[in-house]
């Protein structure tokens, strides 16, 4: 297809490099230097997408990040969802398609919605999709809401990356202000980052034909870029968006064109001593009926397409404005061969200096656009002149409009800086600063190049010492520019039937704004949420201030009183890949392994994550074996023979110092300081609100040296808890804590044959029950490996916890398995461990201990020391219990039908009725020793209800169970002490 809208000469495109691209299945051509939008315009493509709600045809409106309409979905290697075609750099072979239309953008079935528009006003979704339930509508709305499809696969080649940087100056925006600031800072020797979102530096100078020092302004830009690119103290990131301004001058930058081609995008987190915001200004739309028709464009976009991309978006142009900025474009439009039919200016009086630019044109002052005709392309506009009250129809194919300029205060606002409304330029400008930042140039409300340079110089030289100021002495001479404006937030729309769009992306019309106000949503944040104006992809870059203005007009208040909505990051959409960097898949939260993990995997263990990212074996299934069969087999081994499990993830700490005993007495409920060296005790830790925090054992090594263990998943929080107490509550205590979780691994040998197995392994420790009783530890050698052996039991059987250094763990493990063969030893996974501890009624964090129970609830009165005046949690436990409120207490459950399991977590209700629960099932397992299902539950007043019946109320049935003591095996604990 012929590029019939391309100008023969001019522009910043390379006509020697022709690029082909695919749009909606057809091949077109553009040039190096084009964006997808400029190439599509050059090919005469008017309708790019369909609108969100009404499926109206939409074309290109802006020329950069402000464009609210030209969303496309990129395909193939570049696959990504919603992309503004004005932001997509044209590449050879680029493939894109329209969004929000079916079967095609030219004939869109969804456009039928516009005939129902009366029935889908603002708030329609909130009012409609709730009967009988929102979930009925959710899937359909989710499909509609996303616009483009998300890519199904990650990019085939390349990866994302993140970098951190610190710098003296971070300058955001490579327009005239940003470049001059960079030059001055760089010459002073400071470290400088220059970041700009455009494909090339220059900002507004890329599109405006201005001169600096009597030469084209872009020559000056090229000179600055050349100079700073040779300086090692400058990092220049072009085609990179500063999209988030966070606390303490941290700015997050998304770099899209990385010098290393294998990096798709790079995310920079830059902390700067000073952030210089030079983000320019964004042109505002005018709001008038049918202002969304393809061919209605922002005036600055027309100027950019003409002078930067050498594309003529139309032949016959009408301009609609309320300010001076469009007048300076006239000579470029005429040079491109565009017929300017009329300049419709809403102002009564226009400065004669400004009118000089339009000396040969027809300027219609005090007039507005009353309507736009045409569906897929403008064919005429209706002009209403207030001077003579006349209506005139002008045939045209392009309408360029300008509602004035909004300083891009987004980053300033994200930094928590405030903005205020400036009547002179009818826009919000930066007011108060909160962080170390400064706005210069157009984003500070200064639209005149000469003044921008003066302002920048004044600020930058003020930053430097006299000797460093000497380095910068250049004078910059430039053209005169003018800017004045009379605010026009919309034409008179009170009785207007045609749609006039405030927010083109979200199809928010004047009807919606009026409706929101009528229904009482007058706060700007409410209007935003009710109408969705200013949400979505473009975040209302061109339309938001008009909404604020319209509210002010309708409510009869000032714009400062209406205020702005919150500017949030990201400034422009950012890919998830860029945010996550290389942290994807298993690297996001890596698993923790023990030396036995590999052995477990080789033996076919089914692995679980068992708290704190520890990867542990759940069970070791054999061929053809079910889950339950495998677990039963492992339990049986422990109860009748011997089993071994890897207890390495257990949290372990060594405590040293004069006052460890006193400290342990404070953090545990029971008395630890009375222990003799070599002995230990099981204990509970509470928090000061009187609830169980963790459980474990404490052993005394010698006078001033102890070690404790914590549950695997809680070791970090126990460490935090202990360190915090020592830092703030008891700095007087001499206690030093070392985390030895990873320094000691352990294999726990458990079962009636455990002692025999240890003897077979060979040891210099006397294993006799009287010389090495329960709750003591011994140091010595097991199978010739130095070990600390501890007699604790989490299964209820005779157990030896053999602690060794990690380098010896696998050797020890393999020796145990080999020596245990004659006793039919089995490795035991966490599923069997769970069964064994439930049979014994031992508590488990996350099951019986859910952050609501105290030790009395679990029947552990013995653990609450009566001798100690104070320990953490004591006061609160007694305070809470003194109120006499009914407590849920731990009981055992025996289902009436022994073959019927109770789902864990299932609620218990009085008599199984549909009333408030009186407890819930904390665990239920198939007990190998009892040959039936057994459960544990927290039940109101459970301790006094043994022998009664409990009712588990499920969705479709009620399970009856007998309430018992919470112990189903060896109730007196003879076995574990054997």
């Amino acid at each position, binding site marked *: 297809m012929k590029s019939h809208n391309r100008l023969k000469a001019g522009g910043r495109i390379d006509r020697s490099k022709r690029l082909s691209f695919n749009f909606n299945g057809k091949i077109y051509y553009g040039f190096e230097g084009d964006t997808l939008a400029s190439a599509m315009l050059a090919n005469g493509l008017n309708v790019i997408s369909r609108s969100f709600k009404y499926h109206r045809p939409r074309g290109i409106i802006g020329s950069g990040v402000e464009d609210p309409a030209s969303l496309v979905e990129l395909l193939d290697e570049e696959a990504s969802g919603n992309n503004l075609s004005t932001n997509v750099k044209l590449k050879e072979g680029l493939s894109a398609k329209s969004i929000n239309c079916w079967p095609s953008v030219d004939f869109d079935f969804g456009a039928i919605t516009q005939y129902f528009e009366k029935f889908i006003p603002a708030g329609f979704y909130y009012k409609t999709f709730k009967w009988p339930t929102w979930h009925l509508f959710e899937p359909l709305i989710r499909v509609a809401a996303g616009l483009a499809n998300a890519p199904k696969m990650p990019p085939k080649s390349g990866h994302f990356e993140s970098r951190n940087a610190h710098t003296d100056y971070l300058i955001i925006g490579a327009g005239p202000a940003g470049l001059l600031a960079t030059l001055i800072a760089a010459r002073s020797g400071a470290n400088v980052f220059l970041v700009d979102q455009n494909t090339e530096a220059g900002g507004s100078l890329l599109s405006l034909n201005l001169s600096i020092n009597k030469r084209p302004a872009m020559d000056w830009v090229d000179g600055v870029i050349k100079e700073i690119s040779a300086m090692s103290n400058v990092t220049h990131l072009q085609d990179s968006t500063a999209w988030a301004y966070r606390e303490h001058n941290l700015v997050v930058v998304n770099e899209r064109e990385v010098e290393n081609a294998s990096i798709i995008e790079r995310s920079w987190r830059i902390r700067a001593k000073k952030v210089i915001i030079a983000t320019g200004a964004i042109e505002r739309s005018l709001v008038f009926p049918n202002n969304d028709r393809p061919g209605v464009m922002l005036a600055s976009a027309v100027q950019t397409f003409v002078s930067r991309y050498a594309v003529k978006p139309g032949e016959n142009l009408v301009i609609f404005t309320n300010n001076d900025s469009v007048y300076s474009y006239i000579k470029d439009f005429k040079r491109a061969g565009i017929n300017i039919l009329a300049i419709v200016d809403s102002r009564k009086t226009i400065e004669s200096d400004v009118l000089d630019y339009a000396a040969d044109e027809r300027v219609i002052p005090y007039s507005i656009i009353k309507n736009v005709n045409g569906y897929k392309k403008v064919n005429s506009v209706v002009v209403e002149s207030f001077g003579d009250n006349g209506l005139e129809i002008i045939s045209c194919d392009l309408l360029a409009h300008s509602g004035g300029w909004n300083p891009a205060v987004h980053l300033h606002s994200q930094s928590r800086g405030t903005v205020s409304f400036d009547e002179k330029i009818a826009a919000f400008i930066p007011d108060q600063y909160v962080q170390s930042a400064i706005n210069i140039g157009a984003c500070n409300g200064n639209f005149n190049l000469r003044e921008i340079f003066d302002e920048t110089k004044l600020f930058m030289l003020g930053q430097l010492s006299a000797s460093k100021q000497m380095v910068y002495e250049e004078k910059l001479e430039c053209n005169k520019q003018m800017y004045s404006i009379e605010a026009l937030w919309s034409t008179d729309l009170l009785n207007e039937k045609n749609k006039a769009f405030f927010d083109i992306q979200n199809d928010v019309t004047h009807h919606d704004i009026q409706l929101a106000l009528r229904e009482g949503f007058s706060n700007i944040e409410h209007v935003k949420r009710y109408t969705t104006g200013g949400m979505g992809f473009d975040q209302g870059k061109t339309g938001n201030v008009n909404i604020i203005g319209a509210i002010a007009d309708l409510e009869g208040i000032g714009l400062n009183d209406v205020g702005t909505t919150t500017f949030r990051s990201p400034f422009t959409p950012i890919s998830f890949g860029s945010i996550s960097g290389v942290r994807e898949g298993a690297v996001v939260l890596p698993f923790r392994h023990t030396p036995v993990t590999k052995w477990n995997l080789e033996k076919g263990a089914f692995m679980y994550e068992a708290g704190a990212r520890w990867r542990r074996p759940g069970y070791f299934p054999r061929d053809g074996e079910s889950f339950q069969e495998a677990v039963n087999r492992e339990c049986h081994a422990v109860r009748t023979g011997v089993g071994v499990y890897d207890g390495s993830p257990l949290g372990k700490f060594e405590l040293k110092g004069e006052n460890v005993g006193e400290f342990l007495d404070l953090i545990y409920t029971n008395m630890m300081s009375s222990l003799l060296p070599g002995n230990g005790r099981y204990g509970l830790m509470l928090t*000061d609100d009187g609830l169980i925090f963790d459980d474990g054992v404490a052993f005394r090594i010698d006078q001033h040296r102890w070690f404790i263990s914590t549950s695997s998943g809680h070791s970090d929080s126990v460490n935090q808890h202990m360190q915090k107490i020592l830092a703030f509550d008891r700095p007087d205590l001499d206690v030093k804590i070392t985390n030895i979780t990873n320094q000691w691994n352990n294999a726990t040998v458990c079962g009636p044959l455990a002692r025999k197995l240890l003897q077979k392994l060979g040891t210099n420790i006397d294993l006799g029950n009287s010389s090495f009783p329960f709750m003591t530890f011994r140091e010595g050698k097991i199978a010739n490996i130095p070990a600390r052996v501890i007699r604790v039991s989490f299964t209820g059987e005779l157990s030896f916890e053999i602690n060794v250094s990690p380098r010896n763990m696998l050797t020890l493990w393999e020796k145990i398995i080999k020596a245990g063969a004659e006793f039919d030893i089995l490795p035991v996974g966490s599923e069997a461990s769970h069964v064994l501890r439930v049979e014994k009624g031992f508590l488990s964090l996350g099951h019986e201990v859910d952050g609501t129970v105290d030790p009395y609830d679990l029947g552990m009165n013995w653990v609450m020391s009566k001798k100690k005046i104070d320990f953490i949690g004591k006061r609160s436990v007694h*305070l809470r219990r003194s109120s006499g409120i009914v407590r849920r207490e731990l009981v055992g459950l025996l289902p009436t039908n022994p073959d019927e399991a109770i789902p864990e977590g299932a609620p218990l209700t009085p008599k199984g009725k549909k009333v408030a629960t009186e407890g819930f099932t904390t665990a239920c397992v198939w007990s190998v020793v009892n040959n039936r299902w057994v459960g544990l539950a927290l039940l109101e007043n459970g301790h006094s209800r043994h022998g009664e019946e409990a009712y588990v109320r499920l969705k479709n049935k009620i399970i009856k169970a007998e309430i018992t003591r919470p112990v189903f095996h060896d109730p007196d604990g003879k076995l574990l002490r054997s």
Partner: protein
Amino acid sequence: MLLIKCPFCKNRNETEFVYGGPVGANRPDPTRASDEEWVDFLTMVPNPTGPVHERWWHARGCGEWFIICRDTVTHEILETPIEKS
């Protein structure tokens, strides 16, 4: 992301720290405090808009607990702990 000054490690990113809550009243003597005093100690946590003293733990660093004063509106850190080495 805050830039927090650890007394040992100097300025480090917030991601290295664990927040330990605002500094409230000291733990009263549980044998003397009235019920009201004890409950207040547990539940009345400072939550101002503006400067607040708060605890941070350099969990992914040196392991030091320390106190800073931070403005909850601006995030400005008004007081940092005394440097240690």
